[in-house]
């Protein structure tokens, strides 16, 4: 036992083996982080390795050609086109999502109506994506086939837009909530109406956050395949001399559909095509995420936080 006056430095020093549990625990959680890192790297490397043949030899051709039964000619131009159109539909729902978020964050009192909206938005965000495919078939493919032309990119775009809507509502809501109260109070104090406060202070301050949310929603939409499968995206189709509307209302595919189809072909020789399409999709998604990051960095700078 140590006397209070004579505590030796040694006794305060952590001894080896003293904290064995701590070391094991630290090792375990570091291993978890390491595994997560490894997976990220492995996905990237695996895709590039598998796709190398195509990336190195015929990248542009791959991007510009439609799918075909000929391995040397098959590409993803139809998929890119379909995905771009689907993304366009998602962007069109942006005002609806932001509007809903404004209602929930700025206007809604604690009434049954606003609680209903809140609950449905939250639950919609948790509904598996394939269920939106069922919705798409029932409502957009069968119900509105006069408009959509049945199993078309219009129906798919609408279904994916509906899928992304709760994501936009939730992220836009977070962005709106992050707007500091003093900013609102300052504007109210000068005799601005609620709408003026929202329009001139809250929305501009939240805009980068809202855009980030939308951008992430678009990235999500680009990668979503399950609803398209149900709605009836096809592996490949042939384009005749159709006009724009006929194309919109006709057969369609999308990048993730290309990947799924190539990947499920029994012959392993098509694996490279799946990987190359994945590479294109990953690059697109990461570019989009990059935009989101840059935008978010700007919000902090601009608001002086």
């Amino acid at each position, binding site marked *: 036992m140590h006397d209070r006056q004579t505590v030796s430095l040694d006794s305060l020093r952590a001894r080896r083996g003293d904290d064995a549990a701590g070391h094991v625990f630290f090792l375990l959680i570091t291993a978890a982080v390491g595994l997560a890192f490894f997976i990220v790297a492995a996905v990237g490397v695996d895709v590039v390795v598998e796709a190398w043949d195509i990336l190195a030899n015929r990248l542009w051709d791959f991007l510009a050609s439609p799918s075909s039964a000929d391995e040397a000619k098959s590409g993803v131009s139809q998929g890119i086109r379909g995905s771009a159109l689907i993304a366009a539909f998602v962007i069109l729902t942006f005002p609806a999502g932001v509007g809903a978020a404004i209602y929930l964050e700025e206007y809604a*009192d*604690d009434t049954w109506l606003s609680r209903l909206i809140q609950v449905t938005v939250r639950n919609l965000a948790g509904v598996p994506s394939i269920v939106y495919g069922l919705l798409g078939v029932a409502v957009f493919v069968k119900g509105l086939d006069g408009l959509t032309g049945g199993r078309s990119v219009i129906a798919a775009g609408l279904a994916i837009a509906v899928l992304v809507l709760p994501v936009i509502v939730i992220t836009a809501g977070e962005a709106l909530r992050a707007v*500091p109260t*003093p*900013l*609102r*109070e*300052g*504007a*109210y*104090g*000068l*005799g*601005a*109406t609620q709408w*003026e406060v929202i329009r*001139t*202070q809250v929305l*501009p*301050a939240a805009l980068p956050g809202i855009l980030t949310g939308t951008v992430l929603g678009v990235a999500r939409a680009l990668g979503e395949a399950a609803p398209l499968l149900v709605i009836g995206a096809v592996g490949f189709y042939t384009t005749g001399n159709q006009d724009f509307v006929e194309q919109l209302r006709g057969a369609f595919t999308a990048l993730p559909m290309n990947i799924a189809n190539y990947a499920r072909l029994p012959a392993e020789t098509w694996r490279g095509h799946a990987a190359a399409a994945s590479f294109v999709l990953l690059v697109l998604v990461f570019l989009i995420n990059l935009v989101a990051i840059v935008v978010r960095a700007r919000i902090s700078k*601009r*608001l*002086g936080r």
Partner: protein
Amino acid sequence: MTMTEFAITAGVKAASGTGANDVFTVDGLNVFYGDHHAVSEVDLAVKEREITAFIGPSGCGKSTVLRCFNRMNDLIDIARVEGTVRYHGVDLYDEAVDPVAVRRRIGMVFQKPNPFPKSIFDNVAYGPRVGGRKGNLDEVVERSLRSAGLWDEVKDRLSESALGMSGGQQQRLCIARAIAVNPDVLLMDEPCSALDPIATGVIEELMKEIQSEYTIIIVTHNMQQAARVSDRTAFFTAEIDERSGQRRGKLVEFEETGTIFSNPGDERTEAYVTGRFG
């Protein structure tokens, strides 16, 4: 709980007698946050072109009362106001009164400077613009900045972000911003609490200068400040309510500033201003 139980001093009664030049007359004001009865039975009258100071310990409801004057409490969902607040004889809480129109006339400056993340110019021009003012606001902006004593410091960088200014400058910008809509009353909630003594002095001088144009109500924790700038002082305190156990704010004494500081009518006031309490 009746009014008599909350004994109101003779001084308060005298001060709250309605006069022709009263901007605000408050009668039996009670404010609730949910079931928290935060302020009870306040009566007072604020005179035109005077500086009225609210002092008292933290949590006694000074800000709460102040925010009743421009209906800022409407923005808090759980806040409820009872009693009457008359502005030039018009009941501010009448159903037909629009709080937005009220706030246009009764401006507010907050504890922490809260400039908008815009240019200095746009900050000052904000009020007139949302009020529907179109066209060239240079003149309005210059006049407001001059009144706030800021013009010479910022005239060359009007288009720079207001967030780049010092704290004291930001607070004066907020005053200029409030002045730009030409209000009748300025409510200031601890406008100097985030500032150093020099910036505080500047703002105090500013208040004295613009006093000829505006009726000012200021909340402050700084007793010297109240003594220096105000014409009349209201002392609030918080007492534990026996039944609910909640802290409830009340007005103890409302008198000319000189009286409050040299010859208070209530011992609690005396204890507070001499620093023995709160």
